[in-house]
């Protein structure tokens, strides 16, 4: 029986929602699911991991108490765990953090790696991934074990599937050399949730007109529980920071709902958001290309439509 590991990402004792999706993806295989949990997160996460399908919870302990500033050490510990538990595959979330760690692990293990998977078929050992900025998708077969896979955030919905979740403590041997260290984590000014793992995103384009006007999107985002995104035109004009840019040269996102306001719908913008479940476009030009490839289009002025949306949602939230 196959053994599938899942790299658990948690923040403040809470398992990330996107990670629960990775557990659901792992559960598509009839094998055993091992949740790999770096120690500082341990205890508080056990209940949730059991509820969402972990047969075993491997708490990874290293000689050094806090290995968070040392990505090399974390990767070595996880690669050792794959070996120790003879895992056939390791699944994680292809967000900014997961991507880096999974690539480090695959390199140490000399294992095949496919990041940003849109689908996984365990029996045939194949995955689907998008390429060429979303213009094509490819089917790839992985040979040799272990397979290291990163799934695109929000592609697999989480699923309740209670399991035993036996706790296993694993003392990982890790290198002591410290050639790379994270000295500091700098928080920028924009704040707000990150677009790459957000479930709802409201984005603004050139038509928003100024950094000041982005406020109407932020207000709407806060009642929607959404992250704010931007087109490149809006970023280049200085209305929003590059960290918010969605598209080919920005972030790739896959939210449940993407609301594009004053964005024309360029190929490069779509490269970053075409796998959103539902796309809504707000545009005042009926001929805007985005209306040809969205689910719902609102023909109107974003300066009227967006505040109306905020107002319509606000009372619901107040209750």
């Amino acid at each position, binding site marked *: 029986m196959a053994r599938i590991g899942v790299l658990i990402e948690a923040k403040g004792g809470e398992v990330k929602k996107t990670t629960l999706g990775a557990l659901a993806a792992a559960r598509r295989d009839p094998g055993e699911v091992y949740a790999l949990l770096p120690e500082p997160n341990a205890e508080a996460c056990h209940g949730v991991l059991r509820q969402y399908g972990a047969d075993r919870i491997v708490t990874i302990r290293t000689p050094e108490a806090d290995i968070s500033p040392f990505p090399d050490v974390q990767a070595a510990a996880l690669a050792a765990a794959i070996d120790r538990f003879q895992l056939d595959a390791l699944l994680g979330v292809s967000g900014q953090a997961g*991507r880096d760690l999974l690539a480090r692990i695959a390199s140490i293990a000399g294992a095949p790696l496919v990041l940003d998977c849109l689908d996984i078929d365990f029996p045939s050992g194949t995955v689907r991934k998008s390429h060429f900025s979303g213009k094509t998708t490819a089917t790839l077969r992985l040979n040799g074990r272990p397979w290291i896979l990163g799934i695109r955030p929000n592609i697999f919905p989480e699923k309740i599937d209670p399991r035993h979740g036996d706790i296993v403590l694993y003392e990982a041997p890790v290198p002591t050399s410290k050639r790379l260290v994270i000295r500091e984590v700098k928080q920028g000014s924009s704040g707000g949730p990150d677009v790459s793992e957000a479930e709802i995103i409201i984005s603004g384009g050139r038509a928003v007109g100024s950094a000041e006007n982005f406020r109407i999107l932020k207000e709407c985002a806060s009642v929607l529980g959404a992250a704010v995104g931007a087109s490149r035109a809006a970023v280049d004009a200085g209305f929003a920071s590059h960290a918010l840019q969605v598209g080919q040269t920005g972030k790739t996102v896959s939210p449940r709902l993407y609301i594009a306001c004053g964005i024309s719908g360029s190929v490069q913008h779509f490269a970053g958001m075409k796998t959103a479940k539902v796309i809504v476009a707000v545009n005042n030009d009926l001929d805007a290309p985005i209306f040809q490839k969205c689910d719902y289009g609102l023909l*109107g002025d974003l300066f009227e439509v967006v505040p109306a949306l905020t107002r319509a949602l606000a009372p619901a939230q107040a209750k």
Partner: protein
Amino acid sequence: MKIYVCVKHVPDTAANIRPLGGTAFDETVKFIMNPYDEYALEQALRIRESGSGAEVIAVTVGKEVATSTLRTALAMGADRSILVKTDAYFTDSVETGRLLYRAISLDGFPDLILTGRQSVDTEGMQIPYRLGVLFDMPVAVNVVTFSMVEGRVTVEREIEADVREVIEMTTPCVVGAAKGLNQPRCPTLPDMMKAKKKEIRVIPQADLGFPPPIPTVELLGLQAAPDRGRGTILEGDPEKMVRELLRLLREEAGVL
């Protein structure tokens, strides 16, 4: 001091990619240097020009046609270049990493290896990490600032919206460049003329040892990703439109 810059020959991001059945696509489209690799090369050139006197060597793994990307690199200012010549468009990342490692090792001892943060065509996001393990060097990717002082490299890498890690590494190391690291220069006509005289060393893939009989990743098929069709268009009074939208999102789409 030797700086190796890995550059990939990729279809222009604006090009229409037309699958031709199986794993083939129409390769007659315009090809360019992978945009992120321009930031990597620019960084290498700046290090050379800051008085370090480094030699900058551009390396690519690809078909003969990838020579044009090496020419671009030479025109931008690389001192010389290496083409590891393959026959196929597809070489898996483990093998590509191995070929880059072998070719660079054959050429010299790198003090620094610069790459892009990802290929815009195949989006594997792993070559710099593979090089790190093969060369036994630390790696940081998605780098937006870079400085090197007395054998230590300090970089900032973007991890979330406006959140950056400040990373310190020993040298030699591998750095994967992202947009914003610098403003890559555009070669002038004289630069392009000069580039014609610079060296392109061609190493056939077979000279670098045999790949494993079964590749770790195989490409089985390539399909065009369809766009969704024209959406349901609402118009009229903003308040009414919004109410109707929320109803559709809740009842029809089930996303709210």
